[in-house]
């Protein structure tokens, strides 16, 4: 079972190492971890996607909460959430099949952000499912390189864990 945790932490040196170390030491599997500042520069938000049964997820939440630098932990599994991931995908394409890539990116609401005689770099910011779908479509052309941010998520509507 995959679970999304939204975690507000003190924006301090060492917090990322502390959190990553906590997961590694206790054998929790992180699928992705994205971190960035919030509207309050002293607070960062981590979005952690973790894989495990309910017992493991419960322990992850408790161990995170126990960290002095962790301000709030909220599981985003229950309600509606907005989920996004950014990916940059460099595809091997020449002049002869560049048109096909243009079509795919247009349909997938992605953008071509860089071109070279032998490659095109596609940018997509969408749900993880759509990112995966795009990857599937681009794979046959040959993916040269790729960078993904990991998922970030917020609760929809006026719900939030507060900053």
């Amino acid at each position, binding site marked *: 079972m995959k679970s999304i945790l939204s975690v507000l*932490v*003190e924006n301090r*040196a*060492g917090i990322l*190492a*502390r959190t990553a*170390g906590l997961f590694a*030491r206790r054998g929790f599997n992180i699928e992705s971890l994205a971190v960035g500042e919030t509207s309050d520069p002293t607070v960062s938000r981590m979005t952690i996607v973790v894989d495990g049964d309910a*017992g493991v997820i*419960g*322990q992850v939440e*408790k*161990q995170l*909460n*126990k*960290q*002095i*630098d*962790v*301000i*709030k932990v909220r599981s985003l599994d229950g309600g509606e959430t907005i989920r996004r991931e950014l990916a940059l995908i460099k595809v091997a394409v020449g002049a002869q099949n560049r048109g096909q890539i243009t079509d795919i990116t247009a349909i997938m609401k992605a953008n071509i952000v860089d071109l070279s005689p032998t490659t095109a770099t596609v940018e997509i910011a969408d749900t993880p499912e759509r990112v995966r779908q795009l990857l599937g479509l681009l794979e046959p052309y040959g993916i040269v390189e790729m960078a993904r941010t990991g998922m970030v998520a917020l609760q929809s509507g006026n719900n939030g864990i507060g900053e």
Partner: protein
Amino acid sequence: MVECLRREGVNTVFGYPGATIAPFYEALAQSGIRHVLTRTEQGAGHAASGYARLSGRPGVCVATSGPGATTLFTAIATAYSDSIPMVAITGQVATNQLGRDVFQEVDTTGAVEPFTKYSFLLKSAADIGRVFKEAFHIASTGRQGPVLIDAPVDVQRERLGSDDGAGAATGDGIGTGAVGVADFIYPERADIRGYKPRYDGHALQVKRVAEAIRAAKRPLLCLGGGVFLSGAVGPARELCERASLPVVSTLMGIGLLPPGHPLYYGMLGYSGGGAANAALAGSDLLILIGARVGDRAITQPSELAGTTVVHVDIDTAEIGKNVGATIPLVGDAARVIAQLLERDLRGEWPDWIAALDALRAKERTELDTRGERPRSVDPVRFVRALSGLLPEGAVYIADVGQNQIWSAKNFCVPGGRFLTTGGMGTMGYSVPAAIGAKLACPERAVLAVCGDGAFQMSMNELATIRQLGLPIKIIVMRNGVLGMVRDLQKRAGAKEFAVDLSGSPDLGLIAAAYGLGYARAERLDGACAAARDMISCDGAFLLEIVVDPDEEN
């Protein structure tokens, strides 16, 4: 930094100086705070632990960077697993040299991360006040534990203005408020937004626990070290008596109920007693208070599937970690027990009590009918006899190994305190911890009991005992082997290997070398007579008793 210690009311620190902590020591020298020079940094950490456990205040230990810090780590990890409040201060290389692998540099805060409650790397002297305030606050509240402050040597030398407005130079680095110098500010209180320990139990959960007690047929209360840490010894006893709940304890909870209490059935677990483990297996309601029940306490959590488990702990993360909890109850033991005592807890289980009494009587008969040891001292009988000889309120510190189990199962001192390291099981704990305990409570008799293996791990601290003139009593149960390891090998059907302690010194000569009184006994009666002499003598004393290596745990 020294001023911070003074404002926290610290009057004793344990440590070992070195280059990168030298400025701190210069200030300490003029402070009036007592510094105890242990013979290793690990000794300083264990002494701080013993001090903390008896004084109820965070123990403070100090070491230099690099090897000083790494030698301290074992003691910090030991304190962490036993939830002992401690503030460890380490020197560090200058900030402009950090990360360059200079002489005596290690990444101290990186290394201690898994076994400290929190750690700080001081980047600027302006942070000193806040960091120390937070360190003491974190160490001594919630689930207590060690906090480390790593202080680069240049930060220690920075000058700060005085916070009293008078600009008085105190000679400890706090200057006269020169221009461009930050003022030393010691906050009144720490306010950490991500750290708000919850002390009161949730009222609804408390109600559910009371209902579970009334509905139970075979309830059992299991008390752990958290009850000591929360200062809930009296309330726990009242809870057990008011609701007539049979009680077992973990290793860290020994001594919570007066030994010989009619409702106390002993220590449970891997090394525990038959009655306690039978009580656990037979119970339909298990109430755990301040016990994380690690694998040595409840070896088979799956066997509790049919039992209603109430788990009271101040650390949310402990609840459900080792044993599934039917009714989780986060809170401080003392507060939660007080909340429970406001409720109706009446239940009746006379048959259950009778069954447990019979089991306990059987266990006691087995003890009473143990065979005579013609050529050695029976450690079980000896600990029981020793308990009777010790003055009321004596502090008994058991080391690690077979001696620990003999001590734990037979300790019985009215008003006494039993200390040991349950979580880490760090050999060599007892002697340095005794130093800290004695300094915290000079009026109480303090006794360290160890095996010949553990004793040789902290024998160096005899010099500290001598230097301070502390009347600490030490008993070495000498069997010439690493008994616990040997026992494990035997149980596993493995060959006896690497457990032979031959080559160990003549302890009489060691005692003489350090100016300790000394006696040796090979029979129980001689051991008891020697123990009597040891207890009545004024100074430090080493009693060596000969134990058969084939004695079982």
